[in-house]
């Protein structure tokens, strides 16, 4: 397979417009970011939009918005819209990014260092 580039090229604007119903994601931030972990609280049900159902199925184990975007071959902004829908219906839960106020907590940095040293 010639990589995922081909698939991305096929993601034409019209298709994305249909999936989101013309809504656009908040690319400036908001509560959902690239590494917000999404976890399903339910299983897919009949009548769900296919993309919604796929996300619910995919997120039985926690998955970041970036990973959902990669597996669905949809832009992050589109995935953000879809995940926001699912959050509103309590079908998924969002586990928030560790907020960085100004600088991260030393304890968080130490945890990451320990993890990296095990590699």
């Amino acid at each position, binding site marked *: 397979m010639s990589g995922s580039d081909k698939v*991305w090229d096929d993601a034409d604007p019209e298709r994305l417009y249909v999936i989101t119903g013309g809504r656009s994601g908040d690319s400036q931030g908001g509560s959902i*970011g690239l590494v917000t972990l999404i976890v399903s609280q339910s299983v897919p049900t009949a009548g769900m939009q296919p993309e919604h159902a796929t996300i619910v199925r995919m997120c039985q184990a*926690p998955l970041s918005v970036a990973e959902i975007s*990669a597996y669905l071959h949809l832009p992050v902004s589109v995935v953000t819209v879809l995940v926001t829908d699912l959050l509103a219906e309590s079908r998924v839960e969002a586990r928030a*990014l560790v907020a960085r106020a100004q600088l991260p907590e030393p304890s968080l940095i130490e945890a990451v260092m320990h993890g990296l040293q095990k590699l």
Partner: protein
Amino acid sequence: MDFKSSDSLSPGTAGPGTVAMGGPATRTVVGPRTEDALPASATAAVKIVIVGGFGVGKTTLVGSVSEIRPLTTEETMTQAGVGVDDVVGVERKTSTTVAMDFGRISINDELVLYLFGTPGQQRFWFLWNGLFQGALGAVVLVDTRRLEVSFDVIGRLEERGVPFVVAINSFMGAPDYPTEELRTALDLPDYVPIVACDARKRSSSRDVLLSLMRYLHSLAVTPEPS
């Protein structure tokens, strides 16, 4: 116009990580392989951004330390012709997509680290808002043959207040500058670490990340240098 919104989920165009299950009645399964699933205990994620010009080794670095095969996500550029020379066809296609490769390292049962590679050229800076929001810091991956890209990136990171380290990827045939010469060339303050690395090697890439974390730690426990 094509309204079949699930076209890209069909087996024919399935990408990495997509497993097609046989039989017309069976739905295509899209998502991570079982072994790539995070534990249910994963509650928080942090990210580090790897910035550098084309071909400098961002994806190589991400791939060498990632526990999953690097994935590709994308963002859509909707502003008309931002720094893009070729505008032929703009009237037909109103958006351009830019791919970002990323990888993942499980730090412990609760914490996950994501690494995003992003192109450093100015025309891709529109990606940076979402990318750097909440990021721990950045690694500027430098090709000593093309310092000018790094120069712009470093200025931009300083403007945004993103802490970063500079990593020199060892290339065949790239000039081997002494660190202090590079520091002068890149106009870097003394406190910003410069490290050499071989992005193909897991241990070397890990050490780059560790030097960023040590630097962040020093910033977190001592007042920011003025």
